[in-house]
């Protein structure tokens, strides 16, 4: 099956076959990361711009390493969304980048839809590295890769995702991806953090009690709570949040005994996840990070071949 997506704007436009191909490709690329010489010439001569308009450490690092291991030239630019608002428009920024002939722009932006905006206006491939509260496709794919490694399959799994659903792009991408691959998604979060209509995005059930959501779950994914991002009207305190929505060894026993615990990072230890769980035997958090490089290599590789296929 050929990959036909020039841009990776989200998981929503991808089919189950697309996701399968990305995961299989990532499996093949993963081996490179354990070699002494961690580099293949696949994208030699390609230029990848990592345009991060919002702070990010691991995603940018992961994309940069992915590009470099494929022998692409990767260049990072960063800027805050606010400075873009004050000065140059995103379109002008993009046009200027494009004038230097990159092959792929990897974009992280605080505004939902910014990658779509770019894709409509520039000629190169756009890979969404997280846009506002919309999507974070590479994160969902590395989550799926990690789950598949540990569980052998995605079909029929019960995956609980707990935290601030409203502001999470990770959740939206994971709902699409998990649903398409046949998993069942259960969401839980405080009443102020579960947005209307979230259940329409896929095969999703919504809970407000963490314990209901993780009961007999195969996978428990905890989301980062970002107090700085949300107004203070959403939560009484982190203390109360940790009590009702934090994952600790006690409530983890409600999940299946072989359940795995995931977190997209960076973690707030003692808030959404207790250190006993974060460092415990069921955590696969560093696996996620490891797989992130492989998944991003797969994405960069797959979008690189699309233009030539369309020409034929």
């Amino acid at each position: 099956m050929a990959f036909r997506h020039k841009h990776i704007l989200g998981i929503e436009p991808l089919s189950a076959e697309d996701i399968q191909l990305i995961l299989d490709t990532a499996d093949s690329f993963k081996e490179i990361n354990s070699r002494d010489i961690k580099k293949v010439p696949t994208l030699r001569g390609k230029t990848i711009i990592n345009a991060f308009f919002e702070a990010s450490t691991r995603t940018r690092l992961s994309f940069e390493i992915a590009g470099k291991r494929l022998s692409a030239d990767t260049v990072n630019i960063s800027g805050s969304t606010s400075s873009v608002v004050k000065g140059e428009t995103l379109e002008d920024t993009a046009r200027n980048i494009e004038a230097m002939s990159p092959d792929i722009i990897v974009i992280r932006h605080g505004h939902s839809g910014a990658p779509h905006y770019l894709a409509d206006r520039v000629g190169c491939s756009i890979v969404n590295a997280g846009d506002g509260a919309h999507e974070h496709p590479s994160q969902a794919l590395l989550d799926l890769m990690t789950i598949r490694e540990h569980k052998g399959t995605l079909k029929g799994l019960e995956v609980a995702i707990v935290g601030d659903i409203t502001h999470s792009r990770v959740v939206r991408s994971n709902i699409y991806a998990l649903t398409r691959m046949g998993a069942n998604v259960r969401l839980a979060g405080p009443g102020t953090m579960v947005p209307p209509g979230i259940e329409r995005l896929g095969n999703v059930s919504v809970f407000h009690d963490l314990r209901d959501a993780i009961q007999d779950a195969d996978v428990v994914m905890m989301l980062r709570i970002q107090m700085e991002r949300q107004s203070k009207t959403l939560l009484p305190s982190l203390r109360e949040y940790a009590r009702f929505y934090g994952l600790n060894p006690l409530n983890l026993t409600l999940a299946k005994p072989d359940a795995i615990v995931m977190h997209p990072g960076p973690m707030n230890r003692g808030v959404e996840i207790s250190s006993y769980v974060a460092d415990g035997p069921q955590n696969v958090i560093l696996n996620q990070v490891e797989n992130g490089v492989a998944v991003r290599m797969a994405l960069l590789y797959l979008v690189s071949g699309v233009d030539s296929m369309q020409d034929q």
Partner: protein
Amino acid sequence: MKKLIIKGGRVIDPAQKMDAVRDILIEDGQIAAIGDAISADDAEVIDATGKLVTPGLIDIHVHLRDPGLEYKEDIVSGSKAAVHGGFTSIACMPNTKPVNDNLTVTEYILNKAALEGFCRVFPIASITKGMKGETLSEMGELKEAGCYALSDDGVPVANAEMMRRAMEYARPFGLVIATHAEHLELVGSGVMNDGPVATELGLKGIPWVAEDAATARDVMLSEFTGCRLHVCHVSTKGSVDIVRQAKKRGVPVTCEATPHHFSLTDDAVRGYNTNAKMNPPLRSDEDRQAVLAGLADGTIDAIATDHAPHHLDEKNVEFNIAMNGVVGLETALPLSLQLVRDGVIDLNRMVELLTCGPANALNLPVGTLEVGSPADVTVIDTDLKWTLTAQELASKSKNTPFDGWELQGTALCTIVDGKIAYKK
């Protein structure tokens, strides 16, 4: 002055409950006669056979951006767009630079419209100085200068005490308070309707309760003070219902709905379409159905466009930071005619919503073809099919969500004050 005869059209004038094939004689800027087989040797004849003839259409919610924001629109271009759309009277909102909160700005608007404009312009002044919600505007003087209504439009009066006093003060002057009813704290940093589409797109939502709560407050204040209240652009099921119930109690309230709210839902935002971003936002289909019901049962008094021109640079950006608003003067008529074709309302009701309905809402001295009234007339082809091309709009700004739409119906001739202001 040259005489005009509009011959053989179906004349609908809801103000005088007229729906018949008639000839109209226009003389000295007034309707001189309506009857069968009118003729005059020296008159120019407009053959309206098979066409609809109505009082000149009225849009009581327009942003002309003049003075101060002429790069988006000005009185000349805005009034030109109006007559292209069949409108002979428009009321313009005070959020200009400077704000229309004083005699000077009002006179500037009226003078420029009279000298260079294509249609009548009724300035709406601000309720509070600078629309800051702190001090009342000089309402008496503004009334004398020619204002019929007051509004702080997009910056609604947040302080309930201030709104109470504004209504109490405005009432004896016979001024109408027009409210953009939104509870700003509930709007927060929302950029589209709160609901499944906002959730899917990861955009911050504006919940319906932001509008309902504000509508309820202002309706109660109108009931309390007895001041005429006009609720702008109702977009939610709740606010339509609040107005409906208030009218039953005899509260002196009127309201309007926009063509975009009755034609579109928040689905139009998909793809981060900034031309589907406005305030209040496009709502759910349930809300849209409630607006349609309000148009049909008389709860809603007027169709008004909230014509809000913005420069391409203000729309060609990320959705979150795009300006709110769409242009509407040149699409209102075909979209309203669609309601008739869809069986939501009949043609008489549609004409009412675009003529005497809005005139009565703001007490404007227009909106009828009664003999002796100003000769504002619109001749309409209700069936002509055409495709909207945004770039061809007469407005300076092209921010319409209907670009490329197949539309049906158009103004053929717009007569203002007895003179042909637009002819297709």
